């Protein structure tokens, strides 16, 4: 009898422990996606996309796909010029949704935006936000394909105009110089795709996976940080490239650009400033208080750096800390600035969003009611 009890307890313990491994005490399985326009912050967190008023932090609406109860959102939503909020699911049916915040329906006191169109043609999770340029959407997916969609064809079930097979997992938003679309991949590749023919113009590899977006510098060159711990400079026309700065560890996020200076960080928590004109660092890296995966947020007179330790640092252009705010939890998502506020989406806190004023003082927090 005692052995039977031990055996049953052992099985239950194993099942509970193994099940616990699949999730965690987070809102979702990874950090949330965040975007904002003049009035609204858009938070993609686990199974729900929220629209939140920037005035008071109150929920305006929420979107949870009725036909896909396994959907998970964590890519940054993208606000198209026509006002549609485009966000993809990283689980379930891997659908890309175009939500219309101006067309709200109510059901049992829950307000939801109507999905004007959906795209179900991708085979993997949506981690990267799409790039909107003109009437086109360039949407990189974890299945290694770049999907080119028309924004305004009036179709509610979108078909891709073109599927460009690049390879690897595509986790970062592309950028464009007007002639080419530049896409980075976890397979270590940087790709340039012709914006009209959708042909791959060039493909070059670096020495590590690239989870962040590239950025075009004022010198017309393309800069890319990678898990190979190097910042590399690419000629956008030919793809010729060379490392310009060695970091201490993985460079996760997209660098921030102000004038001719790139600001970026590594996962050891070092924060760098690189002058694209001189090709030299402006100062020795500074180390706030923890690993950094969020991109720096360039403000008028300072740069905001969010750390995994849950802090927000405001630095001047010499790397001197102007003020610090302990937001709480862990900050991985790049903060956004809108409506005179800085919006932060930390993990492992009892609130999902915090809005800070220009001095780092907390204005409101957002926690969903249920």
């Amino acid at each position: 009898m005692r052995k039977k009890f031990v055996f049953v307890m052992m099985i239950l313990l194993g099942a509970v422990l193994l099940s616990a491994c699949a999730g965690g005490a987070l809102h979702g399985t990874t950090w949330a996606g965040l975007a904002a326009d003049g009035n609204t912050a858009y938070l993609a967190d686990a199974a729900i996309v929220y629209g939140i008023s920037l005035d008071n932090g109150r929920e305006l609406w929420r979107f949870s796909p009725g036909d896909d109860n396994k959907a998970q959102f964590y890519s940054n939503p993208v606000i198209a010029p026509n006002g549609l909020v485009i966000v993809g699911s990283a689980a379930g049916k891997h659908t890309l949704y175009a939500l219309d915040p101006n067309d709200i329906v109510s059901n049992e006191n829950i307000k939801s935006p109507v999905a004007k169109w959906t795209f179900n043609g991708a085979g993997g999770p949506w981690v990267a936000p799409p790039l909107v340029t003109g009437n086109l959407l360039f949407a990189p997916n974890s299945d290694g394909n770049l999907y080119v969609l028309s924004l305004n064809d009036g179709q509610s079930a979108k078909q891709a105009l073109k599927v460009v097979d690049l390879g690897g997992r595509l986790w970062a938003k592309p950028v464009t110089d007007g002639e080419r679309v530049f896409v980075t991949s976890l397979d270590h590749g940087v790709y340039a795709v012709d914006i009209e023919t959708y042909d791959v113009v060039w493909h070059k590899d670096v020495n590590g996976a690239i989870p962040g977006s590239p950025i075009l510098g004022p010198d017309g060159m393309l800069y890319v940080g990678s898990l190979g711990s190097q910042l590399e400079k690419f000629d956008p026309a030919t793809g010729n490239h060379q490392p310009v700065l060695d970091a201490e560890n993985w460079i996760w996020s997209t660098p921030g650009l102000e004038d001719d200076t790139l600001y970026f960080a590594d996962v050891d928590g070092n924060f760098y400033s690189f002058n694209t004109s001189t090709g030299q660092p402006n100062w020795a890296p500074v180390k706030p208080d923890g690993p950094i995966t969020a991109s720096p947020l360039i403000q008028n007179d300072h740069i905001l750096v969010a750390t995994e330790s849950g802090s927000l640092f405001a630095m001047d252009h010499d790397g001197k800390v102007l003020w610090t705010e302990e937001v709480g939890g862990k900050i991985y998502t790049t903060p956004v600035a809108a409506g005179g506020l800085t919006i932060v989406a930390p993990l492992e806190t009892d609130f999902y969003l915090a809005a800070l004023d220009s001095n780092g003082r907390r204005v409101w927090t957002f926690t969903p009611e249920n």
Partner: protein
Amino acid sequence: MWDLFVSLFINVLLWIYDVIGHNFGIAIILFTILIRIVTWPLNAQQMKGAKAMQDLQNDKDWQAIQKKYAKDREKLAQEQMRVYREKGINPFASCLPTLIQFPIIIALYQSIIRSLASTPLDLLKLSRSISLPNVSDLIPLNSNFLWMDLGRPESVAIFGFALPTLALVVAITTYVQAKLTMPASATPGDQSAAMSNMMSIYMPLLLGYFAITFASGLSVYFITSNVLGIVQYAMQGKANWRNLIPAALARKK
């Protein structure tokens, strides 16, 4: 402490993955063989413990106290403990290796999920687990093995239905291994045999459920471990193949 344990698994897996030419499925199989070698003394102890318990069922002294104290459970338990002491038997010796399996399964599951890093948070956690030099070249790992994505539960679409083939293989090999290692019982009402019988039913169901629910890399571990167990018992001549034949058929023979 637990994180160190998982990190150790990750680094060994990554090292094997690097050495064998970037095949994560083969890395899991080789890693399982390594675990079987490391836990060999425990398996040997389990087999020894099971054999001792089985022999005890046929012991005259043991049978006598079962009969004598059939209606006094407390006294029966005391007498059983006395016999265990006298004969130097640990009644839980055969359970220990199974208990050891669970932390290994959980750590392996976490190390597979973290190594394959299907979400940004998993990839970031992976960066903290790696102590091997120059490993960033390897990342991301190739999660494809045969028809599977090792980071996701496996199923094969057959006539429109998603059939969890790997889970079935896990359940079958677990059942076969459990049955092969079950000694034939001579005594009716033999507690040890009843316990083994129960395990041979519940364990395949449990591991089959794990295989359906969790990453298929874990199923590769289960299947490899089961097959190795079967081969190990067979090579030692301890596999009881008659147990695979249903009882009714066995009686007819």
